[in-house]
């Protein structure tokens, strides 16, 4: 699946988008896998309360299933308007 990062999450991880092959069942499982990779991921995901997630471009929460998902995006709380 595609994993996307926006705003300071993108800056901390150092890239906007990457392909990830995973057996993770939920967003939280995927986050655990990513954190185990490298410090920059561990740092970016250290405080989940400061993050939001969208699965297939719909806002959801970290308990959500990602089975069959094509795209998971992580970003800080939005500041539109």
């Amino acid at each position: 699946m595609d994993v996307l990062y926006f705003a300071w999450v993108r800056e901390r991880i150092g890239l906007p988008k990457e392909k990830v092959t995973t057996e993770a069942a939920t967003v939280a499982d995927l986050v655990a896998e990513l954190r185990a990779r490298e410090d920059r991921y561990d740092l970016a995901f250290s405080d989940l309360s400061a993050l939001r997630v969208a699965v297939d471009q719909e806002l959801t929460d970290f308990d959500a299933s990602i089975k069959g998902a094509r795209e998971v995006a992580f970003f800080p709380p939005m500041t539109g308007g």
Partner: protein
Amino acid sequence: MRIVVQEAPFDFGAEAETFASGRHDMGAIVTFTGVVRDFGNGTLDAMEIEHYPGMTQKALEAIAEEARTRWSLGDVLVIHRYGRMEPSEKIMMVATAAPHRKDAFEAAEYLMDYLKSRAPFWKKEHATTGETNWVAAKDEDEDALSRW
């Protein structure tokens, strides 16, 4: 209903005029426009707005559709820019047309409250010193959603 996400500036006066004109059955038109503020001390060089291209249009459409189910509206317009903008540039606008003013006002406020916290935009301030700062979401903006 028209939802536009673009990098280019938009012509607020022309958009407002077009939206408000030729309406025989809508007595009330409300517009909201967001402008880049320099906090009055001239220390902001620019505001940079990042967005989530695949999701933005859909998220704005969903917010506008929800407004149309909650209020009696004749029309809704949302224009939101991304990219780099200088102080006094217009970031976005919403407009609502309704038979009565209460619906037009409430729907415009609802659109703004949801745009602030549920549309995938992120603002980064570029100071004249060269420092940058991602604008933090405000608790009061999240709290504003609870009234709807």
